[in-house]
């Protein structure tokens, strides 16, 4: 009879799979310790996106400020990873691959609603995205967008949320009156506009200026006109790091503030650092910084309501399964001017 051999093989396979799965399993964050008793942190891993919204991160890393400032807390290695949009960045944080994220507020909501152990501890910037329409089209207000196709970032991103919200407020139904194409990267969206395959794009800076400088379109609406002082990027830190090493988190916020202040005082040099790191053209970055309506604002107290508005919008649109509260999203205790 063959069954016992098969049964033994099946049990062996089961045991093997369990061992492999257990060995590969990552420990969930936020399960251990308290300040003072927690194991020291040697590595800090930061995620960011190639946007002028997050220039503070790029400046601070380039000048070695994160490494210098965090060394006093035992941190010996600070690394950063670039992500094309917020969704994969939050995915990396959910998978415990980064500790700190410069990221749009909208992807944070869907991540926290699905169990991400992290909090927004500071703002990064407000506003700073633009609606760009292709040459040959005339913009005379939101109603003139009726029947057009607009490319932006995918569902759950800040741009998708702000754009849909604005269209709805102007009595345009996304998907019916205006077609929205969720693109995987700014490059795809810009390519589609340049090739005349979409009518407009809604992207964060510096992408609009790059498109304008290439002669492929014109900026017609700043996101600040769509939603005044809307939150864009925020600083998110893992719950484990907040609970176990609040002093490190406070320092991260301080270092970010230092970089913001330096950027504002040395705009051209900051633009050069950004261009060097991201590969963007310096002229595009400089034009973008002149043109944008954004503001590097780190105080989280001023972004609470806009973020809660996003949460309500995402909940209504079925992007998240539960409505999130301020306590779910923010830790306002660590921010100091």
């Amino acid at each position, binding site marked *: 009879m063959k069954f016992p051999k098969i049964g033994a093989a*099946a049990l062996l396979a089961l045991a093997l799979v*369990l061992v492999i799965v257990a060995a590969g399993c990552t420990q969930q964050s936020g399960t251990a310790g308290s300040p003072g008793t927690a194991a020291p942190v040697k590595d800090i891993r930061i995620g960011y996106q190639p946007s002028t919204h997050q220039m503070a991160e790029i400046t601070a890393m380039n000048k070695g400020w994160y490494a210098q400032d965090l060394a006093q807390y035992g941190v010996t290695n600070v690394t950063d990873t670039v992500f094309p949009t917020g969704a994969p960045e939050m995915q990396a944080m959910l*998978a415990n691959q980064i500790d700190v994220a410069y990221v749009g507020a909208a*992807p944070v909501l869907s991540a926290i609603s699905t169990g991400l152990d992290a909090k927004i501890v500071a703002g990064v910037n407000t506003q700073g995205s633009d609606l760009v329409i292709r040459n040959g089209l005339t913009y005379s207000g939101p109603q003139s967008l009726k029947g057009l196709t607009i490319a932006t970032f995918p*569902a759950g991103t800040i741009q998708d949320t702000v754009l849909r919200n604005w269209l709805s407020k102007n009595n345009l139904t996304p998907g019916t009156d205006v077609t929205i194409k*969720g693109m995987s990267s700014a490059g795809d969206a810009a*390519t589609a506009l340049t090739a005349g*395959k979409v009518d407009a794009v809604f992207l964060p800076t510096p992408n609009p200026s790059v498109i304008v400088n290439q002669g492929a379109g014109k900026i017609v609406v700043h996101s600040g006109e769509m939603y005044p002082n809307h939150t864009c990027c925020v600083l998110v830190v893992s719950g484990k790091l907040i609970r176990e090493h609040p002093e490190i988190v406070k320092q991260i916020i301080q270092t970010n503030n230092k970089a913001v202040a330096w950027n504002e005082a040395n705009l051209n040099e900051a633009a050069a650092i950004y261009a060097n790191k991201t590969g963007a053209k310096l002229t595009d970055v400089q034009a973008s910084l002149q043109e944008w309506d954004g503001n590097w604002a780190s105080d989280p107290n001023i972004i609470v309501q806009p973020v809660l508005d996003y949460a309500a919008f995402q909940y209504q649109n079925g992007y998240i399964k539960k409505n999130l509260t301020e306590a779910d999203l923010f830790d306002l205790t660590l921010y100091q001017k």
Partner: protein
Amino acid sequence: MVTENGKNNYRWLGLCALLLVLIVWEIAAVIIVANPFILPSPPDVFLAFIGLIEKGRLLLDFEVSMEHFIIGIGAALVVGIPIGIAMGWSRKFDAFLDPVVELLRPIPPLAWIPFAIIWFGLTASSAGFVIFIGAVFPIVINTYSGFRSVPKIYVEAGRMLGCTKNLSLIRHVAFPAALPSIASGIRIATGVGWMCLVAAELFGVSNNGLGMALWFYYDLHQMDSVVVYMLLLGFIGLVIDMGFRHYMNRHFLRWQVKEVA
């Protein structure tokens, strides 16, 4: 287990394997990992499946994806088989096209996305083009190999029996002889093309589609729904392959079926 025709039926082993995978998956998800983001359990995925059915989007996703797939595979067949025949039959054609084919073949379908957008826009044809890129080369290569492997004696016999023109030799001798190889190429191509579907729906070609929905739920970190679409892609891919094999064996390769096993 022995069937009526006296042959062993081992299908129950496959069912055992599926059951074992489900048990291991459940144990790993609930007891070991205990985090539905890292590994959703089978009940999580089943509930997500029910939720997607209730939303009424699964059928629409399926229809849109099939449209993309048919465009891509259809184009790959129309382009790939004649090119493979030409290269396999004519040394001159082979020498002419081989460098181009070998240069283009290793370029991943994802790398063509910028030109898919530029040439076809954000349309079904654009998604079909990415699938076409993935599917066309296995068809070309296998058709070529099939024609190269036609025994010379068949061709000579064909000539003796009155097939004197190339077209009639190809039609009546070489093509039937190469058909098993061509069929293998199409099988590989449908598999590769189906896998390319997820990449083809990555860049906003439509608001529906199995690949698009997979990315949509990935962006929202709803991993249970992501697994639903992964399993659907696997299942539909399996059905397509089984249907194709059944059709080919029944209508074109009856002479070959059961020759070995």
